């Protein structure tokens, strides 16, 4: 990275307005910045190394919080207490701030996803073309409301704000794959296939 200057641990004082020391005090008497040792990885799980890699790439800077949480979620599928605590400690942000960020953004999930995920786009174009009916159909079939996972952990039903495929509305994502002009029956077929797996 060419522009490492504002991000390494010895940043100038003006930058510290938002970079208040938190878990580990960094400013020592005389203004010398103590070397920071990140906490050990929570377990031998190789995925933690990927998470650590993201943080290292960003110089363990506070502003890497959202990036790192993205990495955790893509590696583990969701964010649990241990992972949030580990990331907060490693980046030296207060746990309250890390938890605040996790709950503020819709993209982050605190619950493990099901084996399969059906995401119905609830953007305006999809709504105009009947996405609300699709959601109702799926909710009725699965017996859960959106944002939940079936009790056998097989299928999660989610809604998305807009995936940007509005010209093919209504759109659903079957395990992340975009399927446009979705009909109720077609969606039910997919749910049936997943349910019996």
């Amino acid at each position: 990275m060419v522009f490492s200057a504002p991000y390494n641990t010895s940043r100038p004082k003006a930058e510290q307005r938002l970079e208040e020391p938190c878990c580990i005090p960094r400013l020592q008497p005389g203004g010398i910045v103590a070397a920071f040792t990140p906490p050990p990885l929570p377990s031998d799980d190789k995925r933690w190394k990927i998470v650590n890699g993201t943080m290292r790439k960003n110089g363990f800077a506070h502003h890497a919080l959202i990036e790192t949480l993205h990495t955790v979620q893509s590696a583990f599928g969701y964010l649990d207490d241990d992972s949030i605590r580990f990331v907060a400690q490693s980046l030296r942000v207060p746990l309250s701030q890390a938890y605040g960020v996790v709950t503020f953004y819709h993209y982050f999930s605190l619950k493990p996803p099901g084996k399969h995920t059906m995401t119905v786009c609830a953007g305006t174009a999809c709504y105009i073309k009947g996405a609300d009916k699709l959601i109702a159909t799926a909710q009725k079939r699965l017996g859960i409301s959106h944002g939940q996972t079936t009790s056998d952990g097989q299928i999660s039903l989610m809604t998305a704000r807009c995936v940007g495929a509005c010209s093919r509305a209504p759109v659903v994502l079957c395990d992340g794959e975009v399927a446009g002009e979705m009909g109720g029956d077609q969606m039910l077929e997919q749910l049936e296939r997943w349910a019996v797996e």
Partner: protein
Amino acid sequence: MTIEELEQIAKSVIQENEKYDFEVNVCMDLACMSQGSDRLREALLKAAEASGKKVLVRRTGCMGPCSSGPLVRVDPDEHLYHHVKADKAEAIVNSLGSEPVPELQCNLNDHFDKQVRVVLENAGHIDPEKIDDYISRDGYKALLTALTEMTPNGVIHRITESGLRGRGGGGYPTGLKWGTVAKAGGDMKYVVCNGDEGDPGAFMDRSVMEGDPHRVIEGMAIAAYAVGASKGFIYVRAEYPVAVSRLTTALRDARRRGLLGNGICNTPFNFDIEIRLGAGAFVCGEETALLASIEGRRGAPRTRPPYPAVSGLWGKPTLLNNVETYANIAPIIRNGGKWFANMGSERSKGTKVFALTGKITNTGLVEVPMGIKLREIIEEIGGGVPGGHTFKAVQTGGPSGGCIPAEMLDLGVSYDALMAVGSIMGSGGMIVMDDTSCMVNVARFFVEFCMTESCGKCIPCRAGTAQMFTLLSRICDGKGTMEDLDLLIGLCNTIKDTSLCGLGMTAPNPVLSTIKYFKNEYIEHIVNKRCPAGVCAMEALVPEAPVEVLA
């Protein structure tokens, strides 16, 4: 990298392409990919190899009429094929050099005739993952011209002269904003690109980032040179994985070519860009919230002034523009400000990309000169409302915009004209509704959206949107009274006047504009307990639950 080297690359690409007799362009935009254009491309590659013909199969960005996808264009004859499935690959390859495949040919002349392509000039013509393709179409020429022949002030002057206004929706003059950042002091400045296209129903920025990522990078680099910044961020929604991966590739290639990094084009200019992912918060489209999100915090807006141009990222002067604004920069530098100012209307210059969706025949991406009538966009380019239904309203500007009724279709599209009728330009979503849409229900949908997306920092927005939602739900359930309607209008005006940021200030727009133009629908719901479009159930299926207000 120098201009001569750039021209050398362009020449070699053109020579390389001349080796082929035919070019088969396959649209690999999200909408076409969802219909199997990736499989189609593989089939075409296989068929081309088997045929022995000299065929170049190219992946491209969005060609426009997404409803006809997957789209294939065969050059040099410019045959456009629609709804092409993988099994048709052989037929297409066989037809090369003779008559086109009749059953796949589509006639979309009306769709394309009225369009003027500036931002989308390369979409559908270049491979977004190949930097050389971009260079062969005058790519990065504007950047090198600016660096070697123009002063930063000269660049700002040209942008001011063009009359370009911010394409994110606000319509703030771009040249003026650049001038403010350039004048701001300090050792460190940032350039940020707002690719957080949270407005549901709009996908222009996604298509530009997916179809022509280098154009955004070039625009940002020119901006950085003009304002004196050395570091840039592109903030992209996490919901756009294809855009993220193509931007990542584009940044890597630009660095390898020496178009980003230290000492660009043997000048002292240094600039590099990082990608930052959003995490699903509509409010992060607001500039101060977006900057907070880049800093790794909750995306809550703050009061302005100070504006980001003076105190933005980490307290430093920050230039923040939308994807489409940056995409307009390179052509303006290349062709001059006057060329751009000649397009469009008096106070809104240039072209605008719209995402045309909803109840309309040709859904997709269109680029039109400012000042074009809504009727031309909807009836001629869009092909009108399908299925024998009648047009009722067009919604522009997403949750911050308003609904424009049929009587106003002769309105010329510009920032000021849309504002005057109670809507906004917004980022460019245009959702067409027909007689099967209930306007009260639509207003309720948008208010529900704003209610859940409100960051909760200021009370008018946090509590006000929840109360608006309750009132609208009552009307939709057939329990509303005429007093509710008055209360709703009063509440809307309060929220508009007192909210902290753009989200709250514009949240009442869909309600106010539907009350203004479709008051009879509201009255029908309240007095006759009837939904004219047959959408609202008119009876609460569950006992009315009090809406939780965290005031």
